[in-house]
């Protein structure tokens, strides 16, 4: 049987074939690679997100710890920050002594990250007991003060003249704001 196809139908057939080939090519060389990319990228993103979550969790822990520390040691932190004031010191601790004189302080040296001020104090006390109280109170002062040698007690009339040095520790802080909580 002779099978004859008209010209128009032939053209149509070729057109369909052409389109079909284009579709195949497009699918194979554009769509499938892109699909592979899609899957790979999706996975990579997921992996990265998991990683980030780990970091986030760790961050949360550290943050919690930091905040805890900050709240626990608030007084100490503040005390380290406070600048020493002779006036204020006298005002606070005058009560423990009969007389109290403090030589103006001078910045002496650095102690690791801290700056040190040496203060000479001379006072008159009636009994050593007040001195003990003073020492107790000093630990709760606005500053971090270390009483240091040499310490001298000398009887002067009814009072004991005591002279001692104090080391005031001040934080040499590079002003670094605590980071805000990130999520």
């Amino acid at each position, binding site marked *: 049987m002779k099978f004859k196809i008209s010209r128009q139908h032939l053209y149509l057939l070729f057109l369909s074939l052409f389109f079909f080939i284009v579709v195949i090519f497009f699918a194979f060389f554009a769509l499938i690679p892109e699909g592979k990319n899609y899957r790979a990228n*999706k996975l*990579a993103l997921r992996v*990265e997100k998991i990683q980030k979550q780990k970091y986030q969790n760790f*961050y949360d822990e550290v943050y919690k710890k930091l905040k805890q520390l900050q709240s626990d040691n608030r007084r100490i932190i503040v005390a380290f920050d406070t600048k020493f004031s002779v006036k204020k010191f006298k005002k606070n601790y005058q009560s423990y002594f009969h007389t109290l004189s403090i030589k103006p302080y001078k910045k002496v040296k650095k102690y690791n990250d801290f700056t040190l001020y040496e203060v000479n104090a001379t006072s008159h006390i009636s009994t050593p007991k007040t001195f003990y109280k003073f020492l107790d109170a000093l630990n709760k002062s606005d500053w*971090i003060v270390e009483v240091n040698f040499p310490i*001298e007690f000398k*009887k002067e009339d009814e009072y004991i003249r005591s002279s001692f040095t104090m080391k005031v520790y001040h934080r040499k802080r590079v002003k670094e704001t605590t980071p805000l909580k*990130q999520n």
Partner: protein
Amino acid sequence: MRYSYIRPREKTIVTSEFKLVTSFFSVTFFMLFTTYGFLLYKNYSFIKNKKEVVYEIIDLNQSIFSMRNEIAFIENEKELATSIFTHNSVLKESIANLFDLVPEQITLSKATLLKNGLILQGITPNRDVYNFMLQAPLRSIFAQTYSSFYPASNGWLFFVSKNYVDSNETLIINKEE
């Protein structure tokens, strides 16, 4: 029309079969292209998001680093403060113990506490009291003790007691058991 009574009909290559083929393939192409476009967009967004996440991780890292520094610093401060407070307390105890150590009979005129030693000046009724009541405990505390006496006007003795600890140690006067 120049010669004919009627006009010829419209001739077009767009037959119904042609339309069918083109519409079928245009639908196919449309779907393919939209899918492709979707994939492109998604890839772009994935990569973008990943970059962002990476930056976030870096940020977090930095924050963690700085927080840890801060923590270290605070702990440093705390340590220092604690040591200072302890030192002050110890000092207080030492001074208290020192004054407790001195018996009633002996009166101190001057006490100088040094880093590595203690110098006491005072007046004692006699040598024995001094030796027994003061010198003995001092000796147990300090490594080196030196005493010198000066007779006083009323028959008592002025004494100067110099006591030193070992070079490596600092002055701490503990309460005797």
